[in-house]
């Protein structure tokens, strides 16, 4: 357990109501609450802004359409026509991570993307899904994915294990990237917030100014990490279609 004023205290999970199911603790916690808010924000926003279905969009409707087109463009650029089937999934993933990160930027609000178990679960879904997709599309030939053509034969004993390891480390790199970014950003914010309080009267303004700047940067990173998560998912889907 972290100390009371530790910068890591913000990542602690507090159960709101204790629920147990089949011997497992599935308490509704502050993390679940953040997910609930995230899901509500996304569904309500995307539903209400497009409610009028007007040809000339309102500003809010335009935001929804821009998000839609952003991910649709991303998918068609990386995967091509095959990508259309995965659009709902990639869009959901992008919005879930993006709004999860953004909700986390609200002071005192929990950031569920700063928990490795959450990001790892999302990455594992992508990894397992893409691997199954690869086997569906190519059958046993999918293993040639690890074989790099045009390389001298004596290099293969070295390269094939490297390829396998890099493939297997995909969910780890995908999840740790998001988790570490969120963890570091929020920890840094908390550390500087501590400085604001602990420094003698007016000098506390400087770390406060730094926090303001850092908040802007964190919002950028929140978007960037959601984008990276989505684009890597697209690239992995593309790999499942096109082997080397």
């Amino acid at each position: 357990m972290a100390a009371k004023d530790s910068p890591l205290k913000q990542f602690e999970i507090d159960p709101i109501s204790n629920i147990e199911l089949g011997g497992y603790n599935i308490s509704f916690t502050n993390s679940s609450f953040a997910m609930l808010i995230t899901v509500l924000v996304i569904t309500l926003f995307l539903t209400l802004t497009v409610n009028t279905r007007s040809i000339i969009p309102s500003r809010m409707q335009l935001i929804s359409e821009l998000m839609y087109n952003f991910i649709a463009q991303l998918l068609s650029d990386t995967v091509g026509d095959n990508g259309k089937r995965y659009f709902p999934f990639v869009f959901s993933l992008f919005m879930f991570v993006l709004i999860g990160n953004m909700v986390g930027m609200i002071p005192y609000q929990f950031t569920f993307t700063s928990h490795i178990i959450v990001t790892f679960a999302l990455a594992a879904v992508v990894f397992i899904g893409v691997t199954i997709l690869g086997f569906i599309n190519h059958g046993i030939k999918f293993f040639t994915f690890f074989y790099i053509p045009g390389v001298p034969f004596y290099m293969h004993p070295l390269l094939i294990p490297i390829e396998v390891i890099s493939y297997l480390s995909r969910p780890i790199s995908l999840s740790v990237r998001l988790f570490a970014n969120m963890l570091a950003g929020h920890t840094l914010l908390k550390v500087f917030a501590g400085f604001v309080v602990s420094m003698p009267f007016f000098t506390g303004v400087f770390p406060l100014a730094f926090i303001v700047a850092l908040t802007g940067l964190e919002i950028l990173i929140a978007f960037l990490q959601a984008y990276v998560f989505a684009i890597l998912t697209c690239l992995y889907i593309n790999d499942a279609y096109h082997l080397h």
Partner: protein
Amino acid sequence: MPQLNPEFFVSQLFWLAVFFTFLFVFLWRVSLPRIATVLEKRQNKIDENLSSAKELQEQAMEIEKKINDQINKAKLETDEKIKETINALQEDVSLQLSSLDKDLEKKVSDAENEILKSKDDQMKNINNEIVNITKLTVGKITDIELSDNELNKVIETHKGNFN
């Protein structure tokens, strides 16, 4: 680090699965089709407007072509009319000129005839005078009374020597 505390792993995974599945199904079935319909509707509208604009443009081009055709036709007609008028005028002028020429020719030939006639008359008068003078002269010199016929005959035979 609280992230590595497995106490709430199952709870997090459970709620993540619940909320993410709900989000996925909701977006897949409700939100995204809605946005897609709007975008499609807009695209259709744009396509429709574009095609109608194209049609109108074609119509405009057709009308322009018609106008140009009419202008060309009018030009040709005017040219034809001008040509016709010029031709008619030229014909008229040449007709009048030729009639003038004829008139002039006639007048010239008339004048010539008159001149010739008067010359002949004069010659006849001269002949008569010559006859008379000869008659008188011969009558005065001699007592021979010459008839006009004889004198004329003599004069005719010597006519070449008068000139």
